[in-house]
């Protein structure tokens, strides 16, 4: 009997602009870009110089503070440009791609027969370590650690979220090999959260504990799974890996190639062609637009709650499996603050009539629908927080930088994405994810 997690508190947003389940090849990007800021708190030490010839899987840089975690090129080609920002911080590595990809051969390895050390070394030296996040702090995993357990969530409950079931359909062998790899990295279990409603092949994976997950968003966030299965204690480390990255890990072990293939779902009510596009990590955004002119639109690399803004001439983020396109909302609404007015905008609050139509799908834009105010309303954050945590108290502790309080209120158990719905629903328009991120960063510098 598989374990199950039933989430009660949360909010599943019903938005227009879902991706059709059609898989097509995206046009080839000329340039692929790795953005070091995608790896939070990593300071890159460059290994290659501009003009270097690279194979897919060749090393680009490593972390200044942990040289075991290596970052590699997703494509073969020439390192054309290193874009730097203030204080010469590396912002982007732009790689001009060859017409056909030439892979570096890491050699085949059977994770189940190799020793755990060999498996771990292979993972971190071949660039696969970049796919493993650690909790607490929501940062890249440290190659020196052995995690208590490893968590994977294949149930994407985020609004307009890409379906992992669809993305992984043709990669189930690699996914299974990837899980075998993960099972060697921990002494505990590898938990795989799956949609309780679906009858997907993901439910019959081996060397992992399958957990049936149901309920509204954030049921599918990996943080919810961690909290329900093995809540974190101070001093513990768990790792989390995104499902499509597990397939990349598996493929490297079974073929020896670092195949940075990404299936990116284009979604959103302003997107013309809403399909799944097959491309590589760091591809140009415009190769996913099918010729659409995204003027007056917000391009989001990721989902509407946690993604990052990108430009038409920009590049998809390292971890993004989605490009969401919604209209910019820089317009005025006369007397829009009146209760029960503008019910076409979704609201969790009962001061709008939108709750009368639970099945309605909403068009969204980026309007803030108000202005930032002092924290006044209480009780609303708890409604979208399924973790056993007092969200407002924790946010206030983070704002005050009170480390002891943050610790006792459970800062080790959370990641910014767990607070994304609070960003969305809170009346005072405070930036909860940003505050939690700053709180976590403070913990890293003070506690480590």
């Amino acid at each position, binding site marked *: 009997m598989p374990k199950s997690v039933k989430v009660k508190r949360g909010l599943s*947003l019903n938005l227009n602009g879902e991706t059709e389940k059609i898989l097509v090849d995206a046009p080839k990007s000329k340039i692929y870009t790795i953005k070091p800021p995608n790896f939070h708190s990593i300071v890159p030490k460059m290994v290659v110089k501009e003009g270097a010839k690279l194979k897919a899987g060749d090393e680009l840089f490593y972390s200044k503070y942990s040289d075991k975690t290596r970052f590699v090129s997703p494509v073969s080609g020439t390192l054309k440009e290193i874009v730097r920002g203030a204080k010469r911080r590396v912002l982007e590595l732009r790689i001009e791609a060859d017409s056909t990809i030439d892979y570096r051969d890491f050699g085949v390895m059977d994770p189940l027969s190799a020793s755990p050390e060999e498996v771990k070394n292979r993972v971190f030296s071949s660039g696969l370590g970049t796919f493993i996040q650690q909790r607490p702090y929501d940062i890249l995993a440290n190659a020196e650690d052995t995690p208590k357990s490893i968590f994977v969530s294949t149930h994407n409950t985020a609004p307009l979220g890409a379906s992992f079931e669809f993305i992984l359909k043709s990669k189930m062998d690699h996914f299974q090999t990837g899980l075998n790899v993960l099972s060697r990295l921990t002494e505990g279990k590898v938990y795989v959260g799956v949609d309780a409603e679906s009858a997907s092949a993901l439910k019959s994976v081996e060397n992992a504990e399958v957990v049936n997950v149901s309920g509204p968003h954030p049921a599918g966030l990996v943080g919810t799974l961690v909290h329900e299965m093995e*809540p974190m*204690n*101070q001093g513990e480390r768990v790792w989390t890996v995104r499902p499509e990255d597990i397939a990349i890990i598996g493929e490297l072990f079974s073929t020896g190639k670092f195949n940075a293939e990404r299936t990116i779902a284009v979604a959103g009510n302003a997107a013309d062609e809403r399909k799944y596009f097959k491309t590589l990590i760091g591809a140009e955004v415009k190769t996913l637009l099918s010729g659409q002119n995204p003027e007056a639109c*917000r391009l*989001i690399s990721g989902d*509407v709650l*946690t*993604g990052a*803004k990108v430009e038409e001439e920009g590049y998809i983020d390292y971890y993004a499996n989605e490009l969401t396109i*919604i209209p*910019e909302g*820089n*317009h*005025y*609404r*006369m007397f*829009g*603050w*009146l*209760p029960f007015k503008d019910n076409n*905008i*979704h*609201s*969790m*609050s*009962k*001061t*709008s009539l*939108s709750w009368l139509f639970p099945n309605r799908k909403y068009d*969204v*834009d*980026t*309007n*803030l*629908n*108000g*202005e930032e*105010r*002092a*924290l*006044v*309303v*209480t*009780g609303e954050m708890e409604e979208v927080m399924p973790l*056993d*945590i007092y969200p407002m108290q924790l946010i206030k502790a983070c704002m005050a930088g009170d480390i002891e309080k943050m610790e006792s*209120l*459970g800062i080790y158990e959370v990641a910014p994405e767990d607070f994304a*719905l609070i*960003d*969305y*629903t809170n*009346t*005072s*328009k405070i*930036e*909860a*994810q*940003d505050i939690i991120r700053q709180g976590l960063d403070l913990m890293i510098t003070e506690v480590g």
Partner: protein
Amino acid sequence: MSFIRKKLDEIKEPFEPGNKLEKYRPAINALDTFLFVPNHTTQKGAHIRDAVDLKRTMITVVLALVPALLFGIWNTGYQHFSQLGQEVGIMEAFMHGALKVVPMIVVSYAVGLGIEFIYAIKRGHEVNEGYLVTGLLIPMIMPVDIPLWMVALSVIFAVLIGKEAFGGTGMNILNPALTARAFAFFAYPTYMSGNEVWVSEAGAVDGISGETILGKLAAGTEVPFESIHMFTGVIPGSIAETSTLCVLAGALILMLTKVADWRIIVSGFIGAAAMGLLLNALPSMGVDGNDLTNFAWYNHLIVGGFAFGVVFMATDPVSAAQTMKGKWIYGLLIGLLAILIRTLNPAYPEGIMLSILLMNVFAPTIDHYVVEGNVKKRKKRLQTKTVKTA
């Protein structure tokens, strides 16, 4: 609409950053955002946002206050004429009341919002909407004949000492509207209690008795009203507190829209009913009690400012308890204490004001212990884990 927008943008021009009137921006923004929800877009965090904002929340409270306010205005006129022994039409009573009440509202808003604007400019933040509610509540809980300058002074005290001294909206310990009333109550007791302040111009006429029901009970005189009067509110009292019916209409709006927490309202009434029942039972336990303790428990719920206080003041999210469990405890204690103060201390026939203010002070303590439960759970988990691995 676009014409008004264009005009507004023209007016706002000198207030934009870099221009000379820049620091007065919060003031002009407050007026602008009253007409239009601004065109601000999300810059970080979630890219989409809920339609709710603080303005919408606060206006919902104002809407919920309207039934009680309208009734209060009419009742002001009705009480005035009926105590003179005159028959009076609805409109006439309403007009008399409006002439008394509207100036109080104007003074309260003008003075309070003035201070809010000054602080917003001084501190460089936008004007918070909380005062839209506070500014209406203050006149509604005052006796009708209180001089306007006293209203103004109470407002200044409440906003400056009760709110801004603590850091502004969201930081205050005490409910600002009740702070204003408490200030007036202790600073000008002759205008805030007794038997001549509750009916408009009562002092000018000999022989009429404008005492509130609780005042009469405390003094031991006979009460000429039935429960139905107390429920509908055709009785003397502070301007808008008398009608439990209208207060309940407001409570319904607040609870359905979830703007006020139903836990506080329900537990407040439970607490008061429990204390009322206990006091009613005193004679059967061999204690005589007084007229107030023997006053039927259900009448305690509908007389005086109890219902108004629990529905509109105790639920103020800033000064109330903030945790779910805390809200139950907080509401329950407000109910218990309000009736206890009301019955056992005849100097304060209205206990709800003091009981809410007292619980405002204790709300952070209640929350502390509720949150501490969560913290302890976490510590215990860590301990059992360390024991296991050791």
